[in-house]
Each structure stands twice: as C-alpha cells, then as structure tokens.
C-alpha cells in the first residue's frame, strides 16, 4: 500500500456544509460508491452490464441533481441562513469557479456517460436518456450558470 497515512490539514473554509469535500479520500470514496452500486445493481437485477451502468448513471443524475443543484441552504441552523439562496454547488469552494474539486465533479458524469454508452453499444433508448442526463449535469455546473435560475425555477425560498 503506497500511502498508509494521510495528513488532514483543516481547511480555512467557514462553510461547514462544503468543507468536508476538501479532505483527503473524498474523490476515492465517490468513485468507489459508484462502482459498488454498479455491482449491487448487477447482482440484484441480474441485467446486462450496460443496462446496469445506465441505471447507475440515471440514479446518479437524479441524486446529484437533487442535492447539488436543487436543494438550497445547509442542513444546520448555525450559520443563520447565510446560504439559504445558494445550492450546494454554488456554495462549494466559497463560490470560486474552476477549482480542482469542481473540475473533478464535472468529469465524473462525463466519464459515467462514456462508460454507460459504450457498454450499451450506443443503442436507443438508453443513449437518449444517458445523453440527456450528462447534458443537464454539465450545463448546471458551468461557471456561467453560477446563481442563474432559468425561468425563475427554484428561485423561491
């Protein structure tokens, strides 16, 4: 094992909702959760590997869209509602765009899309659903979409 111990320097990020993402091991945990959920879907449903990747991709889309781009605010009342109008994605890294964490989180849905569409041999209807998922996720994470609410959707408190 290469690195048995890691050092965790407490980051100077005051927002407790997003500072956990700056600790070592987060990226690996994310990738491992995706991989193990693919195995779980395969074993429970007994479908083809491509179908399983599509299901993982769509669930990933639903869950990450809901928690990163829909839910606003923080799960505790300590910060007195400072972030009540910002989604988790907008709170990340204090609003700074194009940091390493953000780039990683954009790459993951794209890689998932590539794996899902490759293993299903680019057949419809899976291809359509996968493409829709990755397009929505990537557009939502663009720097130009910071604090943008299209047609006022999700602008309410």
């Amino acid at each position, binding site marked *: 094992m290469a690195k048995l111990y*890691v050092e965790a320097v407490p980051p*100077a990020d005051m927002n*407790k909702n997003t500072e*956990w993402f700056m600790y070592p091991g987060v990226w690996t945990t994310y990738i491992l959760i995706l991989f193990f959920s693919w195995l779980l879907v395969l074993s429970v449903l007994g479908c083809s590997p491509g179908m399983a990747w599509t299901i993982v991709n769509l669930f990933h889309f639903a869950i990450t869209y809901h928690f990163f781009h829909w*839910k606003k605010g923080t799960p*505790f009342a300590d910060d007195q509602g400072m972030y*009540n109008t910002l989604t988790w994605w907008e709170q990340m890294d204090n609003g700074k765009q194009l940091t390493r964490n953000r780039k990683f989180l954009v790459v993951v849905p794209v890689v998932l899309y590539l794996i899902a569409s490759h293993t299903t041999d680019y057949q419809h209807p899976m291809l359509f659903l996968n493409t829709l998922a990755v397009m929505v996720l990537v557009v939502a994470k663009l720097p130009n979409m910071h604090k943008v609410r299209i047609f006022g959707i999700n602008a309410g*408190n």
Partner: protein
Amino acid sequence: MVRLPYTTALTTLFSYGLLFAFGQLRDLFRKLLDWFRSKDLKGYAPICLGLEDFYVRRLYLRIQDCFGRPIASAPDAWIDVVERYSNDNNKTLHRTSNSTKCLNLGSYNYLGFAAADEYCTPRVIESLKKYSPSTCSVRVDGGTTQLHAELEELVARFVGKPAAVLFGMGYVTNSAIIPCLIGKGGLLISDSLNHNSIVNGARGSGATVRVFQHNSPSHLEEVLREQIAEGQPRTHRPWKKIIVIVEGIYSMEGELCKLPEIIAVCKKYKAYTYLDEAHSIGAIGKSGRGVCELLGVDPADVDIMMGTFTKSFGSCGGYIAASKEIIQYLKYTCPAHLYATSMSPPAVQQVISAIKVILGEDGSNRGAQKLARIRENSNFFRSELQKMGFEVLGDNDSPVMPIMLYNPAKIPAFSRECLRQNVAVVTVAFPATPLLLARARICISAAHTREDMIKGLEVISKVGDLVGIKYFPTEPPKLAKEAHKKPVAVILP
C-alpha cells in the same frame, strides 16, 4: 494537523453518506405519510426552513444520550451522572432517580477548585451571607460591590495588565466586547478554529471578518499583507483598525497558540492583538499566568487579554484586561457592563480566593502544588495514551487532550461503553469539529490522583480495543522502559 489512515477517511465518508441517505429516506417517508395531514399554520411562517434542522433531527437525535448528561454532584474528580432511559429510540429521554459515580474526565476543572475547597468555600459561604446571591442590579447602578472592585484589581495584577473589567458570563464577554472595540470599516482577522463566541462577536460588530489558517503565522502575514494592500471592500480606503484574534489553548485541539510569532507579525503590520485565554489562564505557566508566561511573551505586547473564570477558578464569568484607557472606554460603552446584571458576589469571592491560593497569598503552597500536579498529570496521561496507540492531539503541558475517533459510529460506542464502565467522557462531533474529525475530549484536573488516572487509562484502553480507535502502532512495554524516545506517532504542532 491530524494524521489518519487512508481507509479510515474512506470509511468515515462512507458512513456519513449512509447516515445522510437514511435521514433523507426517512424524511421522504415522513413527507409522504403527512401528505394529507392539514398544516394549519394560521398564516405564520414555519419555524424551520427546508433542510435547516436536518442534522439535528436525523443525526444528532439518534445519539442524543451521549450529550447533555445531567449530573447530580459537584464536578470533582468523581462525579454522579444521572441515568436516563428512552422509550422512542432517543427522541425523548427521561431521567430516573438513580445516579452512578463515574470518573470525571470531561469537566474543565483544571485546578480542582470545582468541589469544596478548604480555603475558598468558607469564604464563599461568608460572602453569600453578607452580600446575598445576587446584587439585583447592573454594574453602573448598584451592582458594584467591594468584591467586584477587589477582583478587578486582583485580575489585572495576576494577568500583568494595568486594569481589568468583569462580566457575568464568559460567552458574553467575547460577543459583547468585540462589537464595542471595532465597527464598520475595521478588519477582524481570526483563527479558523476560534470559538463560537468570538465568531458571534465578530458577526455582530459589522466589521469585515477574514480567517487565517489555524496557528500559522505565515498565512496570517499573507492575509494581513493582502488586506492592507486592498483596503476596505469596494471603496479601497485604508482600514480604520485591524484586530487579530487568537486563543491561548484551542479547546478542541488542545494545542497552544504560536503566540511569539503571531505577536511579531502583528507588530510588524501594526495590527492590534486580542488573546482569548479561556482555557489557558490558571492552568498553564509556572505560576498559572497563562500562555504568555509559558511562551515567554510580555503581557504588554498583547493589547487585549480576555479570560473566563469557569475553567480554572471554579466560578462563572469572564474578564477583559487591557490598558486603563481601554477599560475605562469599555465601562462606558459595553452593553454587558451597562445593562447586564453584575457577577454574583459569592462567585466573585470564589475567584478572589482561588487566585489568592494560586498566587500563594493564602499562606500555603497549595497553589504551586496544584500547578505542578496538573502539569505532571497532563504529561503522564498524554504519554500513556500515546504509548497505547491512540491518536492524541495537543501539545505537551496542555491539560486538554482530544482522542481522535473519526467514524460517526464510534462516537456513541465509545461514549456509552465508557459510561458502562463508570468513566464519564465528553465526545464531540460535527458541527463543533470538522466533519471527518470527531473526537473524545479528555480534560485532566489537578484533583485527579495517580490511581484515578490509571483506572481511567485502563478503561480507555479496553474500550479503545473494543471500538477500534488505536490507529497507531502501540509501543511494546519493554522497549518503553529501555528507551524514553517519542512513540511512532508524531503530533505536529
């Protein structure tokens, strides 16, 4: 800086993810089940907005029995903890009338003044009879007794500053003083791990707040240079004043602040310094005068020194010590002085007697003995824990030692198992600490005897094996006797 095994980081993140997922599922089911129930709010807004209370409802309440345990005796080295039970899986807890005597490793009773003391208690009872429990008045009206004046002089002499002012509550001392010292157009630079009272005071002051990386004078210098060059936001005018706020001992880390370097940086850039000695006053330093004495800093170099009487002096309240002009100004402007009830006279007498014992002015050397004992106790306990393989934070000589737990499931496991074996420990989780770094915080006191500490160490070692928190390799006992070298785990300051 903590060092944790990589697999622990992965499993901790995964556990929190699982807890979060289960909490969301439960919320979803609750929303579905309550879909058709009428929500008659009568035109009022709901108390909790959206996700605000998610953490409290779905994570904190599950292990509520580990926090807020009621006690039934004075917080001495041994303490009576009231037993509680719950019928609905920890949503509500009910007290019984039984209590168990446990070894107290959680109270900030650094010098042992929390229980009845042979010098302090008779004098406190006398002052209770003479002055009554409350002055029933604010300081400026009729609430300044002889005792208050005596204590202000004594505190100023003890700390090494020209003057001091007292307040009835430690938290209020920070959150009401900082807005008086600085306002809009000023800059507050505070350590990233500062206590909530400082954060509260900083927010209430209206000044711009910037944070520097915990205990790193180089990052402080970087932040100072950047901010002085940029000036106030939007107008870019120079700042009206800059105050840097640090603490003596950080209560969640147990480590000392790098005071000499930070003071040097502040002097170079002409910023004021505010030192919060809540945990360090009375507990460290050769004569108990706090972190300035321990690190060899002249108190005249720190502009404002704040402290509390709750930890080492066994009382309640806080003080600010600074130059005569600043204290005079604070007495005219601070709302905690003008509108809040003054400190209770028996509490003031307790602090006076405690300081007299520490200084040796009571005619005995009990103060010096207590100080030597707490230093010995802390160093012994810390080195033994490190030999057993626990990850213990904090510097040598500091009486606060957090033991890292990391995993959220180990928090209730450690806490409940220790209670079953009659040791009361305090466990701290998110949001008081960062998400991954949950810990059990041990506070050693001068009242602990060697047998108490050995018993505590045995129990913690057994529970540590059961729970699995010995992250570092243990030192084999025979090697420990031969070579007194530091164990494998190096705790970086």
